[in-house]
């Protein structure tokens, strides 16, 4: 136990990085998800095709494979592009950016389905009524679509968030100093790997428990005005 206290700072810093990665990528994922849902529901066949292959691709390929592909392959492609155009000389993607981008991209596909399902649950008549009242597109989204979208999407969103939180552990494979990697380093140097991974396990459990409570609060908040049997 004393050993853990000794390494308290790096472990807590690692946990902070984990939370930061998760928050940044969930924001990105919501962006991708809204975009994807809009594309899938839009009339344009090209947008539908693109978004459809996006979700199929992401759900077919494991997250770590995509992450490594983006981190190593993306860097190569960027540098080849830079060499070909002469716009930049050498770029290095850092692990944080690579991790956030890949996780955001992957969970964007799951969020696409979430938002698409939620949108389809909104009664069509309400949208028509909004248009009939002369609401602009932005106002329609803000006043009618978003509040209901949030309500219908929340259960599935919460699920995605919990999976996303656990997926951030994979960023340690890229070498980012987040919770798992910090525990690994601390455990290696003290020869107490079990102790430190156990601590990491507990921290993840605490994070999921807090998320659970938070999500339940959000669900209550967004379902004000829904009658329950």
């Amino acid at each position, binding site marked *: 136990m004393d050993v853990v206290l000794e390494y308290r700072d790096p472990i807590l810093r690692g946990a902070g990085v984990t939370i930061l990665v998760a928050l940044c990528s969930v924001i990105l994922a919501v962006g991708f998800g809204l975009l994807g849902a809009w594309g899938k529901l839009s009339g344009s066949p090209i947008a539908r095709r693109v978004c459809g292959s996006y979700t199929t*691709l992401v*759900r*077919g*390929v*494991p*997250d*770590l*494979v*995509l992450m*490594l*592909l983006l981190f*190593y*392959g993306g*860097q*190569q*492609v960027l540098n080849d592009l830079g060499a070909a155009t002469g716009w930049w000389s050498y770029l290095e993607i850092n692990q944080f950016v690579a991790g956030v981008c890949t996780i955001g991209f992957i969970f964007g596909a799951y969020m696409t389905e979430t938002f698409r399902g939620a949108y389809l649950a909104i009664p069509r008549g309400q949208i028509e009524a909004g248009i009939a009242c002369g609401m602009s597109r932005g106002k329609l989204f803000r006043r009618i679509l978003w509040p209901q979208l949030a309500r219908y999407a929340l259960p599935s969103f919460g699920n995605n968030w*919990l999976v996303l939180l*656990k*997926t*951030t*552990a*994979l960023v*340690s*494979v890229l070498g980012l100093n987040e919770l*798992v990697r910090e525990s*690994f380093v601390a*455990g290696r140097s003290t*020869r*107490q*790997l*079990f*102790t430190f*991974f*156990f601590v*990491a*396990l507990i921290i*993840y*459990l605490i994070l*999921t*428990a807090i998320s659970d409570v938070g999500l339940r609060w959000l669900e209550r908040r967004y379902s004000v005005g829904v009658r329950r049997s």
Partner: protein
Amino acid sequence: MAEERAPSLLESITEFSENASPLDFMVILEHWDLFAEGLWMTTNLVVLALLIGGCLSIPLAVARANRTPILNQIIWGYVYVFRGTPLLVQLYLIYYGLGQFEAVRDSILWPVLRDPWWCALIAFTLNTAAYTTEIFRGSIEAVPFGEVEAAKACGMPRLKRLQRVILPSAFRRSLPAYSNEVIFMLHGSVVASTVTIVDILGAGRELNAKYYLAYEGFIAAAVLYMILVYFISRGFKFWEKKWFAHLRPREDAEAEAKQPGAAAPQTALVR
């Protein structure tokens, strides 16, 4: 006059692949055996974990659904821990962590626990068992009470009720959720490559390291995983069709609905 030998087809393809094409596909094809080995490793790990985990989860789910005192709380805790933490940490805890204890290192189990393959199998099995327990519990609880009541009225004892009424109905109900779990397990199995196991991703990483490549190995791995996922989802679709046959709308009924009055009465007379 020295005659210049025309390059063979294979040579020119290799030449194109190495220099012109952005993706050096020949190097992947040359190492097909590496990927075949990886494919075998991934498949046996995932299939074994799913089989053992599935068998483990049935009694656990029954105990949870019956609210067996004490056992219920313990299983709840087990499921909560394994579902609330990353598979990577669970694997590290077993593979790297257990060696910390002298008792483990001295025990006869040490040769097993030192082997990354066994550690991965244990971690995957425990993980999938936790998720599957939750799926089965849900579907056992969703079995209509009337069915159970009818079985009781027929005088079936507890075990027979489980075997003949509750479990078949529950398995069928949990098929869609279980197909997701199978795909998640396949996706999750990539963490095996972080503990030196050469699975599909491991093969890709090895190829990249050998030739200083940036993406060839990963793309090959991604394609292989996609093919696997495709076959898994096709397989489950087929199963669902077979087992949910009684829930599908009758095909002739559908046709009838489209063209009212076109088909119906004569067939009734024939029978």
